């Protein structure tokens, strides 16, 4: 039970997202749905060989899902697909409360969501973007 989850990093990414816009020429488009509340995002990725050259998302959702998706895109753009998958795995590990402090630090801004580990009702919101990313990359491999 903590409201600290709404820290400045999270609220900033929610109110002024950098990557929330429609991308018309995306190579990969995938919808992710949070079944517990019906919120959804559309994740859009542009690829340059193995590298995620650009990405964006659109959709509606709570601050946690929106900020988490925005933070994620900032981290994965310019990275190789398998690097992005590794980050996704690490993020899931953090949300499950299983990551070491070192691992959490390596998640940079996404570590702002580490307290979700103590908020089971909000886990699905936090992982919506990452789960959709994993599915999108898996489908493309």
């Amino acid at each position, binding site marked *: 039970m903590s409201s600290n989850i*709404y820290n400045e990093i999270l609220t900033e990414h929610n109110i002024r997202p950098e990557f929330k816009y429609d991308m018309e020429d995306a190579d990969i488009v995938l919808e992710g749905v949070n079944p517990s*509340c019906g919120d959804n995002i559309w994740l859009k990725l542009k690829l340059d060989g193995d590298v995620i050259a650009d990405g964006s998302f659109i959709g509606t959702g709570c*601050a946690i899902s929106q900020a988490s998706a925005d933070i994620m895109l900032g981290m994965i753009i310019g990275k190789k697909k398998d690097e992005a998958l590794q980050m996704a795995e690490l993020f899931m590990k953090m949300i499950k409360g299983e990551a070491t402090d070192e691992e959490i630090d390596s998640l940079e801004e996404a570590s702002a969501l580490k307290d979700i580990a103590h908020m089971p009702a909000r886990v699905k919101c936090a992982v919506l973007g990452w789960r959709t990313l994993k599915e999108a990359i898996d489908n493309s491999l």
Partner: protein
Amino acid sequence: MDMDYRQDFPLIASERTIYIDNAATAQRPQCVIDAEMDFYMNHNANPLRGTYPLSIEATDVYENARKTVKNFINADSLAEVIFTRNTSESINLVAYSYGLSKIEEGDEVVVSIMEHHSNMLPWQMAARQKKAVLKYLYCEKDGSLDMNKVESLITDKTKLVAITQVSNVLGRVNDVKTIAEIAHKRGAVIVVDGAQSIPHMPVDVKELDVDFFAFSGHKLYGPMGIGVLYGKKELLEEMPPFLTGGEMIDSVTIDGAVYAELPHKFEAGTVNAAGAAGLDAAIRYVQSVGYDYMRERELAVTDRAVKGLLDIPHVHVIGSEKADEHTGIVTFTVDDVHPHDVSEVLISDGVSVRAGHHCAQPLLSYLGVNATTRASFMFYNTEKEVDAFLASVKTVRERLGYHE
């Protein structure tokens, strides 16, 4: 308020949380918990079948609960009171049994847009299966019903009208007595969802002249897993069983069965006797406190909540701006903030509220909102609790990073 009543409810007395999600389920007074436990400790046997004293005792507990319900809602006879699991099961019983046997191709079924999914999906199912026409009765934007619209929507082709007495989102009371009159004039029957009404107001099924009335025990301070379907005897008698099997037959051969008399025809399988005992205790509890007192208290806290919310910038109350048109249910939105974030802030301040679509997605899309936050009050809630709730709501936008 007379704070003693709070002591009747262990979870309320514990002050563990400010519980204002009562429209989802109420808290139970100790007497209900005791009644359920007493059944298992002192009277437990399978009711209705055994001939030994313990089974007869169990039967008495169960059937006494039926008497209490019958008197509580002023039904004509015990045959009209069927125990189910909850409101959803009660309505499904009517949809599968009455709906599928009486509704025919081309008939019309009228359902209000403000229904909980449990009084909407069964009618979508019945209409689809019987190729009947499903017509929606739309409320005004403030949640009220225009009786002229009701009058013109219900036609001679209408077989059934399904409507809630109190919306679980708007809290507004629908005049089901007048709607029943209109339905009957056209030869239709009316099915009323009473899940949100009976916890707050006396219900007299004869006075309302409704054909079916469904409610849940757990919203009326009773246990989960026990609900009631009231139906007019002449209708129930003509209806086929909903579920078949144990304890609902007179005799069975390899070719078929003679079904038991009402109400047992609709109570297949071993019944929830302990739940019925708990519901019996809950109804007696409600009667001992009295609806007058409960309504007075509920109105006082609801009024404080509605007025308080209307005073907070960027907060919008769904439905009426008058507290007496909310039946303790206050649904609201906060500009730019998702309801799950609103509720998260409230939760962190120790307030238990509900966020989401409240199982009424068609109503919310009709009202033009995605999801909302809902506070719902019972007589045991206090002004102090409302103030803590309001104080928390006031901080929501700031805590989400919106600096005015």
